[in-house]
């Protein structure tokens, strides 16, 4: 640290330029959907007529390939939990998480570590409950609100796992989930 202090002492301090002004969309939910799907994410809208857990169970049963076991994050409230065969993260074919929120400008789901990381990462399909009121216009806004009570870790998920490391061809589901589905409720 003393060496760093000596090195920085050799020139005058430059000022911080302040905040980066980036535009805020008028309709954050629409902007989120556009950006998230643009990055390969999928969006479903929960049917308000159905109890959420039941809607989700039907939705999961409709997925191809067949969902055989779901991993549920502990912070998913009881009314959102589908009555389906549960499985540990490593063996489940879908993981169900609750988003803390989302950012429209980057199309990112904000997932705190309180929701069990294995559920967010190991199953091939990741289904994330996203209350529409929790979509922030900008990632900056979301991070600043989160900043006060940051958990040990936060994941920003903005689409499925992908790589173009082999032959410059994009493949999905390399390590993390190959499908990332935001359920707007």
């Amino acid at each position, binding site marked *: 640290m003393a060496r760093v202090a000596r090195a920085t002492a050799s020139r005058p301090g430059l000022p911080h*330029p302040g*905040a980066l002004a980036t535009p805020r969309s008028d309709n954050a939910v629409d902007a989120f959907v556009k950006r998230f799907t643009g990055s390969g994410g999928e969006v479903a809208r929960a049917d308000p007529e159905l109890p959420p857990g039941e809607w989700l169970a039907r939705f999961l049963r409709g997925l191809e390939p067949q969902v055989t076991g779901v991993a549920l994050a502990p912070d998913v409230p009881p009314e959102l939990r589908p009555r389906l065969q549960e499985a540990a993260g490593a063996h489940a074919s879908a993981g169900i998480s609750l988003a803390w929120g989302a950012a429209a400008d*980057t199309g990112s789901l904000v997932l705190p570590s309180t929701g069990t990381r294995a559920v967010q990462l190991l199953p091939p399909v990741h289904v994330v409950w996203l209350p529409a009121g929790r979509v922030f216009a900008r990632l900056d806004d979301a991070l600043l609100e989160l900043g006060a009570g940051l*958990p040990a870790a936060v994941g920003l998920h903005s689409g499925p796992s992908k790589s173009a490391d082999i032959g410059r061809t994009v493949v999905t589901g390399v390590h993390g989930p190959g499908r990332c589905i935001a359920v707007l409720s």
Partner: protein
Amino acid sequence: MHTRIRDYPSRSSEIIRDDPGVRDAVTGATIAFDQKRLQGYAEVDADAWRRWAEGVKSHTLTHLDRYLAEAETQLEANGAEVHWAADAAEAREIVMSLAARHSVKSVVKGKSMVAEEIDLNPALEAAGIEVYETDLGEYILQLLEEEPSHILGPAIHKSLQQVQELFADRLGSEPGGDPDTLARAARRVLRDAFIQADMGITGGNFLVAETGTVALIENEGNIRLTTSLPRVHVAVVGIEKLLPRMADLSGFLQLTARAATGQPIGCFVSLVQGPASHPDDDGPEAVHVVLVDNGRTDVLAHEHAWEALRCLRCGACLNACPVYRQTGGHAYGYVYSGPIGSVLDPGLLGLHEAMPLPFASSLCGACEDACPVRIPIPEMLLEWRREAQEEGLTPWKERAALKGLASVATRPGLYRLAGRIGSRLGATGVARGLPMLGEWAADRALPQPSRRTFRELWRKGIE
């Protein structure tokens, strides 16, 4: 530090001559990256973003001691341990002692240039620890025992066919499998590695001083897994990676992704504050942040080179660089290749060690236009060239020739005379025998001087 930088001229020639597939693969990949960057920049007010990012980074670097102290305090408050490494050897020792302390038998790694810089894998392996590179490109190179050739796409110099052959041989995948099949084969091996690993080792794209947050950007999800599944997470981070506030992070996450691949943000971003503390969190029980100097304070103190520390490691300058495209990164002989390597390596390693990298550029300026933090790479190359000349690190023939040029060019009469003689010499092909032109002429037809110089035409009268 042993590097192969000095062999750049011969290695670059060999790659171009003997391994033309590298040039094809690298040119194709970098042009594709570069076009995506241009699209990514076009969607936002890129000039304003880049100026802002330059400003934040320069501010941070000129107050680096203060922000490092703040980051250390915050990380410790979050329950993470902070370690300081003055050089590569110290950094390796710190990681090795952490591995011993946590009884580590198996390590998964996320792509980290600093880990390459400090030569971490050989040290871990020598201690009998299993090491898995988990970035798909890095994993390919680990199987091949090769070094990364690009900051972002470490294996871009490999063709699909080369990976097919490798995976058929080493992972038993079907010959000629498509990229999807090949990726699944790697996923199977690495999924087990993730679940069994005791320690995850990553780099860090940013370290936010205000909150003690290590931020990591990726697309595959391997870094999310590396920072989440093993009992211990070690982040090896260069001391220049600081950002002052959480309010700075969003802009940098977006700008880095746009510069690197044109994406609005990486598919996955991990923000790591410390070890798991919530009862439902299955994350690591210990988080260590190793802050690596290894020449960075020398760069910081250097009159011109310090601006290279703004670098985000996005690879945009490599992608834009027509020199890099001909050979890929291996020719450069050190982990940081391409334009940024040519200005950073002399600072990190000493100019003598990094010769002739400052001369491995046509100064075309494409790198500076691409750089998200506006590092003035061409001007910095010129500064290194000036230092190289002052320290006598360039060939004496070259120095003598340029001194001669200046003597002649400041004496108009002599200049006119020399021009007339030069034209005659060129015309008779003698130039082929001259020291520097000889090599030039090996690959090119020698230019024919005009029959009469412009001066002669002018004197005669131009109609």
